[in-house]
């Protein structure tokens, strides 16, 4: 809040600089928000495939060897899943445990997204303020110049 009071006291050049750094921050946060959403979608895909596994009786699958090469395979066990728990570790879990762990991660990510969105709203307000003050300063300067000429 104290920041806003200070803004009108600043020189136009300083305001431009602050506006640039605020814009950079907004870009950074927007990127982070997108990354969070991509991560959430990936986790949702994981839950979907567990659900898919449980809903079909068909054991035939195609196993990806590379992104463009597949081999026919058969599912031996539908109750065991290897879940990536981070930094290269994988843990064996059953379907429900696996789903719970993915849901927990999704929840954590959506909490972070909400926080980020709040920050973004605030930053955008600050940016609007700066732009408004800057504009009024420019108008004032133009008036002064016109008066000086007259």
């Amino acid at each position, binding site marked *: 809040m104290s920041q806003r009071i200070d803004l009108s006291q600043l020189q136009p050049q300083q305001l431009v600089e602050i506006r640039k750094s605020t814009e950079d921050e907004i870009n950074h946060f927007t990127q982070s928000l997108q990354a969070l959403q991509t991560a959430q979608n990936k986790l949702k895909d994981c839950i979907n495939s567990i659900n898919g596994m449980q809903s079909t009786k068909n054991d035939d699958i195609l196993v990806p060897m590379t992104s463009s090469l597949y081999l026919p395979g058969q599912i031996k066990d539908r109750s065991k899943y*290897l879940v990536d728990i981070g930094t290269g570790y994988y843990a064996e879990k059953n379907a429900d445990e696996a789903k719970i762990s993915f849901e927990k991660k999704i929840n954590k990510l959506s909490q972070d997204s909400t926080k980020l969105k709040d920050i973004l709203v605030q930053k955008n307000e600050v940016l609007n303020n700066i732009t408004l003050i800057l504009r009024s300063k420019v108008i004032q300067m133009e008036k002064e110049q016109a008066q000086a000429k007259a």
Partner: protein
Amino acid sequence: MNQEFEKASLSFSKAQNELNDLISTRQQLETQYQENKIVLDEFSYLNEDSKIFKLTGPVLLPQDYSEAKINVEKRIEFIQEEIKRAETKIQGQQKIIEESRNTLMDIRQKMSN
């Protein structure tokens, strides 16, 4: 005088670049720290009977629960040490920047006189 000023301003921007490098190292460490904390948290939901694998290159190697947990705990300890070291370095660098800013100001004042 001009040369002196140039030298001082060069060393000032060099010090600032070094600080930026240190700060990005600090940020990387923080990311690693958070990642490992999440893994450790996951371990608390598992037990001795859980089957755990570690991705080593392209293969998954089976690992002991307690061994894996100790590994992660060790790593967190190590990262915490690294964070401490990075922070003292950052503080030192900030002092250097402060000093070189002062010399820069001194020279500028002398030049204007």
